[in-house]
């Protein structure tokens, strides 16, 4: 845009909010010649999908306590009195730690728009089930879910009969949408997948739990149609971008990073960015809207696109984010030769596997364990960690002993936080307790001998937003963020419609998100 005040321009579109959908809209318009003003009432990027340092987390929690922040509530921070945290900016806690399946449309769009070059993608490794022992003297354990045919062959976790059943099911899912197979599940389409698995595949409870876990269904009651779609996506995603993994996670905070990369593309394309500027008031005329921003500026635009952050009718989820002092190494081992080292592991604690004050959990708890490879916490294996008595003696005998010891202490030389754990479950009257219990149980199942220490906890609840976009004159409200634990591609269609609204009918739909690299790229550099 031209120099001068933002009030002098008649904007083609003002985009309010920098969550995933609004940011993807900015990316989609980044090669158009449209005048774009992209604002956000927050002083950070990402909206409901932001990633925060510990300082930012604190101010977010403080703000939630004093003002209505739409979809978020009941946020609190717990810091046990143990040393081990690094400096606050070394952390990047994701509000939306969603997995992205390799076959997600989002990834296709990031590739065709060339934005993927700015993102570092990591592999999501195995899915596990938390198993309480039959004998209460025994320790709980984590059992890896076999989710490929090779896995099913080699696993020792299930019986030969169960293997046959699982194999039959996997084969069915790969072809589930063909006319023949549709007849098999049509009757169950809106009914629970659990029932379908029971009726048609005669699966036992354990096997059904395995399958439901692959869907990441928060209430465990996913419909057959949705469930089969998700499991099909999981199976066909396996191996799509390399051996041994079905889903990806963007380094530095997941979806938050994608939103920022999309905004950067918007900025390179000439969009003007203003943080800390929300809409104070608006007046709509025949073909333009006049907006008064909280920054005091007045701007005129032909179209306003916002994110709708009003609470929808879907349930609420509870989330617990914990920084732990253990690399949780056993969870992040590649399961097959040539696979990249995973940085995320998924663990389900099924309904009924946890007890708090005598009550079992009604809904499953999903744990996403992130290694320091995600960039969301520091890697504890630094030289500072290995300081021994002899090192200190050397320091003491060096020229400026005071200064060096001071620096060591100042940098919290003993920090060791090396994993971030995200837990999600349906909100209930005791879901906060259940999540704490789930965290404890998970950590002791990872290593009974030396249960990893918890260094920091953030708890909050998030309500689902509205599900549809809404066009009212010159204002388009995009749906609320998804609560899904894996990327929900249905949101992308709303972004596309918003794009169409801005560019008009003269632009071919096939051009959506299809760009060439701005710079010549030597692909060899991306090894």
């Amino acid at each position, binding site marked *: *845009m031209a*120099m001068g005040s933002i009030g002098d321009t008649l904007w083609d579109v003002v985009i309010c909010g920098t969550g995933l959908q609004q940011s993807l809209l900015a990316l989609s318009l980044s090669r158009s010649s449209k005048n774009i003003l992209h604002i956000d009432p927050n002083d*950070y*990027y990402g909206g409901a999908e932001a990633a925060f340092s510990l300082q930012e987390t604190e101010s977010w929690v403080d703000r939630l306590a004093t003002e209505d922040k739409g979809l978020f509530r009941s946020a609190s921070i717990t810091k046990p009195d143990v040393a081990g945290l690094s400096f606050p*900016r070394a952390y990047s806690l994701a509000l939306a730690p969603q997995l992205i399946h390799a076959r997600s449309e989002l*990834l296709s769009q990031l*590739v065709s728009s060339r934005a993927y070059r*700015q993102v*570092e*993608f*990591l*592999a999501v490794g195995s899915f596990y089930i938390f198993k309480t022992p039959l004998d209460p003297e025994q320790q709980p354990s984590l059992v890896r879910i076999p*989710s490929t*045919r090779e896995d099913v062959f080699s696993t020792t976790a299930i019986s030969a009969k169960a293997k046959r059943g699982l194999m039959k099911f*996997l084969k069915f899912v*790969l072809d589930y949408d063909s006319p023949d197979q549709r007849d098999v599940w049509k009757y169950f389409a809106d009914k629970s997948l659990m029932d379908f698995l029971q009726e048609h595949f005669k699966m036992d409870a354990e096997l059904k739990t395995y399958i439901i876990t692959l869907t990441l269904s928060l209430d465990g009651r996913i419909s057959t149609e949705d469930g089969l779609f998700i499991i099909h996506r999981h*199976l*066909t995603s*396996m*191996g*799509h*971008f*390399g*051996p*041994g*993994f079905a889903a*990806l996670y963007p380094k*530095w905070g997941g979806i938050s990073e994608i939103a*920022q990369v999309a*905004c*950067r593309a*918007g*900025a*390179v*394309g*000439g*969009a*003007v*960015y*203003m*943080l*800390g*500027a929300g809409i104070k008031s608006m007046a709509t005329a025949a073909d333009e809207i006049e907006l008064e921003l909280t*920054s005091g500026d007045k701007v005129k635009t032909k179209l306003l696109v916002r994110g709708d952050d009003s609470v929808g009718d879907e349930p609420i989820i509870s989330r617990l984010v914990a920084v732990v002092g253990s690399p949780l190494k056993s969870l992040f081992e*590649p399961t097959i*030769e*040539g*696979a*990249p*080292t*995973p*940085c995320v592991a998924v663990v389900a604690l099924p309904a009924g596997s946890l007890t708090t004050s005598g009550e079992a959990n009604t809904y499953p708890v999903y744990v996403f364990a992130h290694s320091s*490879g995600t*960039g969301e916490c520091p890697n504890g294996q630094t030289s500072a960690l290995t300081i021994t008595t002899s090192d200190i003696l050397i320091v003491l005998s060096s020229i400026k002993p005071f200064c060096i010891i001071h620096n060591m202490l100042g940098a919290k030389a003993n920090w060791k936080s090396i994993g971030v754990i995200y837990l999600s479950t349906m909100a209930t009257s005791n879901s906060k307790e259940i999540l704490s219990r789930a965290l404890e149980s998970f950590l002791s199942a990872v290593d009974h001998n030396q249960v990893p220490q918890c260094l920091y906890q953030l708890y909050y609840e998030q309500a689902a937003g509205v599900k549809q976009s809404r066009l009212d004159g010159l204002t388009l409200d995009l749906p609320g963020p998804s609560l899904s634990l894996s990327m929900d591609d249905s949101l992308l269609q709303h972004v596309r419609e918003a794009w169409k609204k801005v560019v008009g009918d003269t632009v071919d739909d096939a051009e959506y998100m299809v760009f060439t690299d*701005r*710079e010549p790229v030597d*692909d060899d*550099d*991306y*090894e």
Partner: protein
Amino acid sequence: MATRGPPGARPGMGNRFAQFKLVLLGESAVGKSSIVLRFVKDQFDSYRESTIGAAFLTQTIALDENTTVKFEIWDTAGQERYKSLAPMYYRNANCAVVVYDITQAASLDKAKSWVKELQRQANENIIIALAGNKLDLVQEQPDKRAIQTADAQAYAKEAGLLFFETSAKTAENVQNLFTEIAKKLPLDQVGPRHARPGQRPGVSLAPEGANTQVGGPCAC
């Protein structure tokens, strides 16, 4: 890339290859984009237009026979009035070049405020270099100088910055600036370029890397 097979007998096996994100900050018209253009393409354009929003470029330099450093450079617009873009660029940046114009006294004040912001908001370990650009102008007309080298140098030392006076026009010290930054980066934390695929976490989405493993769960 993870999905390709072993690289075979390529030269550079076992060499170190490191990639770093660098952000350029500074007041409008001090020559940020010109420094990048000189570094990346070895060109200079006296009548370059203002950068809109931001620009992204890459350049690879060889530090020594065994070490290659690739810079991913985000060049931001100095005219940016709302201070909303920079945080997006210095997020996760490994290094920053803060540029001022040695013939404009106020541009150093602006540079100092950028340095403060970086030290307050960016990655704790960020390497910051201060570059006083347009050295060519004072070489032609010494009285044009508004900021003494010693003053800027003293400030840089106090704030813990690398310091160079540069000329994007004559190329003086431009290469040097980036090489010295590269030398300060934590190269020892970076593995060999062609480490065994299974040991690296990164996944490539490059279309040519994606087509070999397509298919169902048995594709491997």
